[in-house]
């Protein structure tokens, strides 16, 4: 029942979404000036640009359209500093620099900043297809890959060229002898990673991995303009090498060639062992050594201690991510490559890697080495197929001395599967749209729509899609040898398609099903792209040597598990990571309730960054709740993170120490916007006192779906009036808006109208003022006239497109959408809030902040200077930014931290455009002082709001009804704590005269 309704309400929108949802879109055109698009003209051009971007042809179509053209006869290299064309109209970037002999590269190179477009003029010697190799230097900056859009003669040649992603090089900061640091009990500590800026080359591939060979551009003889449009990160560009691409030789041919060259098989008991957890470099910060406890023979392993013994897993699953190793060979020759690996995620599927030896894929088969699913560890030589005995493993040629071995995530044969499924998706989408045009979003299952006569082609398409998907499902089953749950998804879609095409009556009946299955299939494609693989070690060894054991037997495993269970009773997990004995007398204790991973990151930061310079120990405890009780009992922490309201509750009861007079306070608070300090500051006994330093700060922003708005021809609203004008358009398309109701809505409007929540320094609420009443009326009017829903699942409705605009807390929705709705990646963004325009044309679009603060509790009375030193360190830009970046690296993109520190927020891996929007709202925020008794306002505003919403009561009267109650409570509270107050009588409502 519920599903039915769900589908009906979605209307035709999802179809459009899904067509583009299957592309790996990452971000749209960046037109250079992110923060200041005020003119309508600019916006229109942006809409057009989005449309154009969405409609670019795919690489397959591009090649098909040029099928008669040939590969270029030869290669040529362009030094880009010479080709830089600053006068070209396409060159919009500011801060482009020409550098000479930069970082060890002879000659000139050109620095490209993280924003704007840069054009280059190149001369092509001959017609033909060219692959492109970029020589670049990854500048030390944020922890994300470099990303550019590539324009050829003013246009993006094919959609894949929108996402040219170049990786950075990351190294583990291990000790000098190559071992990991250990704590005092002997647990290995995960090494931090740092960016190693190096000159590197990158051959331009499809960043989603769907196109297996390098992308090739067709260039005619003569001059061309190539422009790079920045999406993320600055870098320095060396040269472009254009070359005709040739596929690697097959193994047979390559082996024959090696034999011809006189290369021999290695003889004897030679095993070149490389521990996978110790790479020389990785492409991402997230690829780091892991502690595997699932097998007693993972190397190294310990029943009690943490040993870092594997690498990869789900941190190493996106096409293009690589891990690089160095292998020392005593003798040059041909070796087998044996790996110990586990791929226990993609059930019924395989994970693919591309293997480079010394920078080259040695033969065609190494371009797509497949690792099939198993929930156990496996050991096998590359080239042997699971289940067959007579396979001869491949041989790899290693030079004498140092060899570089790189494993890169690739899609391999999966790319063909995915491309075919993508085609089916497009067909299904088309058919869906056509059917929708005939039936509307709620088809009448009893009506004869005569589909066979009206849309015979689309019905045939559905049939083709069904047989194609059957073929893909068979193919997958054949390759992997079993039918996993993953393949079953395809079969379910096939069943539906067959039912729909079996009889005309079934079409209307199953239309809503079709829509949800299109969604399922889209998700399937996305999931199948992930290629996780965990590696323990690999060896290059002489041919025919016996393979090492894959996993321990039952008794060994049992003994291991049992030992580690027993030992767990004797392990003090609280000292995990401590690298020296701590002086317990002067310990500063900090309590956090943020979860194991976050506290581990913080612990590690404390150990590596803070402890070396500190003369006291820091005790970090992961505690959920209990701060109040323990503070009361006198055994509480010195420092704890508190919501602003709690913080002030503690403060007026003398449980939090004021920090206003601490050393360096005036300097420290410059790190935060003043709005973040307001809720943590209160006037007590005639003195303004701040009671905590801001930890996190969140505020509302406007999320919108660019694709839908551009489809509807709607511009992104800058003011509430503009917003109101587009509501009818949205509602005509069965869409609505996500809007904060009740107190949050009131705060939004009240402060944008220039009002205040309190009057007379917190002695009474200001809700009876004209501005508050009109803000409340404005809010309730919106909800009444447009019937915005009060309760909704924002992420879900945003994803389906039912709510293309949502005003919501920026960090939680952003984080949620990143993981929850990958299929609309790049289709949405957040922008500053709309505001009210005054008569001078200024728009007030401030947002009210929600703050958590780090406070010194009264337990810190004896060592408050130490605690303050720690607090200063913790809230500093460097610490906050390391912490936030580590968090993203370890927990993932969905754990961006809403730090209140201005510098740290800028350092998070936002795109330049996101950052621009975020900063402009960040600086336009206001805080509300937490006066005693503030809780009562939320309560009664909610009551008043519901009264209007439900009973259509007059907003003004509803709110005024509660004002006296609110003021009485505030007065009562102020009396309790000895603040000055005003006596409230029912006769006086503090109503302003209306002019």
């Amino acid at each position, binding site marked *: 029942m*519920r599903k039915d309704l769900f589908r009906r309400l979605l209307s035709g929108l999802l179809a459009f979404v899904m067509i583009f949802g299957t592309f790996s879109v990452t971000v749209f055109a960046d037109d250079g000036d992110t923060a200041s698009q005020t003119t309508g003209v600019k916006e229109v051009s942006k809409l057009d640009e989005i449309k154009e971007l969405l409609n670019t042809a795919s690489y397959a179509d591009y090649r098909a359209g040029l099928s008669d053209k040939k590969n270029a006869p030869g290669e040529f290299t362009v030094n880009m500093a010479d080709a830089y064309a600053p006068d070209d109209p396409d060159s919009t970037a500011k801060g482009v620099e020409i550098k000479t002999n930069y970082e060890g590269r002879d000659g000139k190179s050109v620095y490209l900043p993280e924003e704007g477009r840069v054009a280059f003029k190149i001369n092509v010697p001959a017609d033909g297809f060219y692959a492109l190799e970029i020589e670049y230097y990854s500048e030390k900056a944020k922890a994300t890959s470099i990303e550019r859009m590539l324009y050829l003669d003013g246009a993006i040649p094919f959609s894949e060229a929108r996402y040219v992603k170049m990786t950075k090089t990351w190294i583990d900061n291990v000790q000098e002898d190559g071992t990991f640091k250990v704590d005092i009990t002997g647990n290995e500590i995960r090494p931090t990673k740092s960016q190693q800026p190096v000159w590197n080359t990158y051959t331009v591939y499809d960043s989603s991995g769907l196109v297996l060979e390098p992308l090739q551009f067709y260039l005619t003889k003569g001059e061309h303009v190539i422009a790079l449009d920045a999406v993320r990160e600055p870098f320095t560009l060396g040269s472009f090498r254009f070359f005709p691409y040739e596929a690697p030789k097959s193994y047979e041919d390559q082996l024959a060639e090696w034999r011809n060259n006189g290369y021999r098989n290695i003889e004897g008991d030679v095993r070149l062992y490389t521990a996978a957890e110790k790479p020389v470099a990785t492409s991402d910060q997230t690829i780091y050594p892991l502690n595997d406890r699932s097998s007693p023979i993972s190397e190294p392993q310990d029943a009690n201690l943490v040993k870092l013994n594997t690498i990869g897993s789900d941190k190493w699953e996106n096409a293009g991510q690589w891990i690089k190793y160095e292998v020392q060979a005593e003798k040059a020759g041909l070796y087998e490559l044996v790996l110990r690996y586990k791929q226990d995620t993609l059930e019924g599927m395989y994970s693919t890697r591309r293997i480079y030896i010394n920078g080259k894929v040695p033969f065609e088969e190494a371009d797509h080495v497949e690792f099939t699913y198993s929930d156990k560890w496996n050991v096998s030589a590359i080239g042997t197929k699971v289940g067959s005995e007579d396979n001869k493993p491949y041989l790899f040629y290693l030079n004498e001395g140092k060899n570089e071995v790189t494993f890169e995530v690739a899609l391999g044969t999966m790319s063909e599967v995915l491309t075919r499924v993508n085609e089916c998706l497009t067909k299904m989408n088309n058919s869906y749209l056509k059917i929708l045009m005939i039936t509307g979003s709620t088809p009448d299952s009893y009506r004869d729509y005569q589909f066979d006569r009206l849309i015979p082609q689309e019905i045939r398409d559905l049939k083709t899609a069904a047989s194609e998907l059957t073929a893909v499902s068979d193919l997958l089953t054949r390759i992997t040898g079993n039918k996993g749950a993953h393949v079953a998804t395809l079969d379910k879609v096939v069943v539906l398609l067959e039912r729909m095409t079996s009889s005309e009556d079934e079409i209307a009946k199953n239309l809503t099903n079709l829509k949800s299955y299109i969604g399922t299939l889209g998700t399937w494609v996305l999931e199948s792209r992930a290629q996780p693989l965990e590696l323990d070690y690999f060896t290059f060894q002489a041919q025919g040597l016996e393979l090492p054991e894959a996993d321990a037997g039952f008794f060994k495993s049992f003994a291991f598990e049992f030992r580690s269970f027993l030992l767990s009773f004797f392990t003090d997990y609280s000292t995990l990571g401590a690298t020296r004995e701590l002086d317990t007398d002067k310990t500063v204790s900090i309590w956090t309730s943020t979860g194991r991973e976050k506290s581990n990151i913080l612990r590690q930061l404390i150990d590596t960054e803070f402890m070396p310079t500190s003369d006291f120990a820091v005790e970090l405890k992961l505690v959920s709740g209990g701060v109040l009780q323990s503070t009361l009992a006198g055994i509480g922490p010195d420092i704890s993170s508190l919501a602003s309201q709690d913080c002030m509750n503690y403060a007026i009861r*003398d449980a939090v120490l004021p920090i206003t007079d601490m050393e360096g306070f005036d300097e420290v608070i410059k790190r935060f916007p003043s709005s973040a300090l307001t809720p943590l500051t209160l006037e007590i006994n005639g003195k303004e006192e701040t009671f905590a330093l801001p930890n996190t700060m969140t505020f509302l922003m406007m999320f919108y779906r660019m694709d839908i708005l551009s489809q509807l021809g709607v511009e992104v609203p800058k003011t509430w009036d503009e917003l109101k004008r587009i509501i009818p358009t949205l509602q005509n398309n069965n869409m609505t808006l996500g809007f904060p109701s009740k107190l949050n809505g009131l705060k939004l409007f009240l402060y944008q109208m220039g009002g205040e929540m309190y009057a007379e320094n917190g002695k009474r609420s200001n809700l009876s003022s004209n501005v508050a009443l009109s803000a409340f009326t404005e809010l309730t009017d919106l909800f009444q006239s447009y019937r915005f*829903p009060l*309760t*909704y699942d924002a992420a879900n409705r945003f994803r389906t497109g039912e709510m293309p605009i949502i005003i919501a807390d920026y960090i939680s929705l952003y984080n949620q959408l990143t993981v929850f709705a990958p299929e609309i990646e790049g289709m949405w963004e957040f922008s500053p809030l709309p505001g009210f325009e005054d008569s001078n044309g200024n728009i007030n679009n401030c947002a009210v902040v929600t703050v958590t603060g780090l406070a010194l509790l009264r337990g810190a009375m004896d060592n408050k200077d130490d605690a303050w030193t720690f607090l200063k360190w913790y809230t500093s830009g460097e610490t906050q930014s390391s912490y936030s970046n580590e968090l993203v690296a370890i927990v993932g993109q969905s754990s961006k931290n809403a730090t209140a520190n201005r510098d740290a927020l800028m350092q998070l891996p936002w795109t330049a455009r996101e950052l621009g929007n975020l900063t402009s709202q960040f600086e336009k925020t206001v805080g509300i002082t937490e006066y005693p008794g503030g809780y009562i306002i939320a309560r009664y505003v*909610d009551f008043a709001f519901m009264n209007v*919403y*439900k009973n259509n009561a007059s907003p003004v009267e509803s709110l005024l009804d509660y004002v006296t109650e609110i003021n009485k409570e505030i007065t009562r509270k102020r009396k309790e704590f000895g603040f000055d107050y005003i006596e409230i009588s029912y006769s006086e409502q503090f109503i302003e005269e209306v002019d």
Partner: protein
Amino acid sequence: MSANSAAAKPKKAVSRHEMSKFKWTLKEIKRNRAAYAMIAPFVLIFFIFTVLPVIVSIVLSFTDFNMLQTPHIVGVDNYITLFLDDDVFLIAVKNTFIFAAIVGPASYLISFISAWFINELPPKIRALVTLIFYSPSISGGAYLMWKIVFSGDSYGYANAILIDLGIISMPIQWFENADYVMPLCIVVALWTSLGTAFLSFIAGFQGVDHSLYEAGAVDGIKNRWQELWYVTLPTMRPQLMFGAIMSITQSFGFGAVVTALAGFPSVDYAAHTIMHHLDDYGSTRWEVGYASAIATVLFVIMYGANALVKKFLSKVGS
């Protein structure tokens, strides 16, 4: 005379009447020390974790304790404010009584009737059905499913069905609408109420000695109703008592479920019970002294209700 009495003294047995009550008690304790030693752990725990908090709470109700600072004695101020100057408390009392009056007896009856029916089933099926009936109250937060059923979202089950049937066009904010909150909470409360009382009834039914039924038949019992009233119920009076106490405390102390469903505080205080009022002052406003006064009043009310029920139950079977 004096010599006489001196000689008589040692011979005379110690009698209860010649000692003070205290002395007598001490003597008895000494005599039964093994039994006292055995009960001591329980008494200790019971005292520390149940009796002591009650006493502390009563003491705190005469102070202005604010959770973090040293309390001051304020006499009966808290009680005066509570009874004379707290409108919301009156709403809370009203709601609590409505709640208790409906949920208490209803859940008691439902427990009893379902236990009676289940008792008639064959043993194996009985065990299974008992588990099914008892499960809502053991599976902690299972009542949260009602939040999905009555979600204010147009995709909540109730709203979706009603919209689909064309009965309503806009989603109803079930738990944010003063008209619906109370009835819905009562329904959910009844759903979760087949708890301990229900189990004790089942135990009671099974503990009835079958020879009593035969004796009853000989004595002229004509039908199952008479059997129930004259034989079964009087035999299981302890379980009835236990069930009643459980039902009453439960229905008076009902709060968490309402908070989980309707939020805190519920809109317009529509489902605000004394428990909520207590919570409001205790955890939102951090006025523990006042909250203790509320708790003391609630304690007295529960105690009174229990005494009343005891009186009723003594009439069973007569």
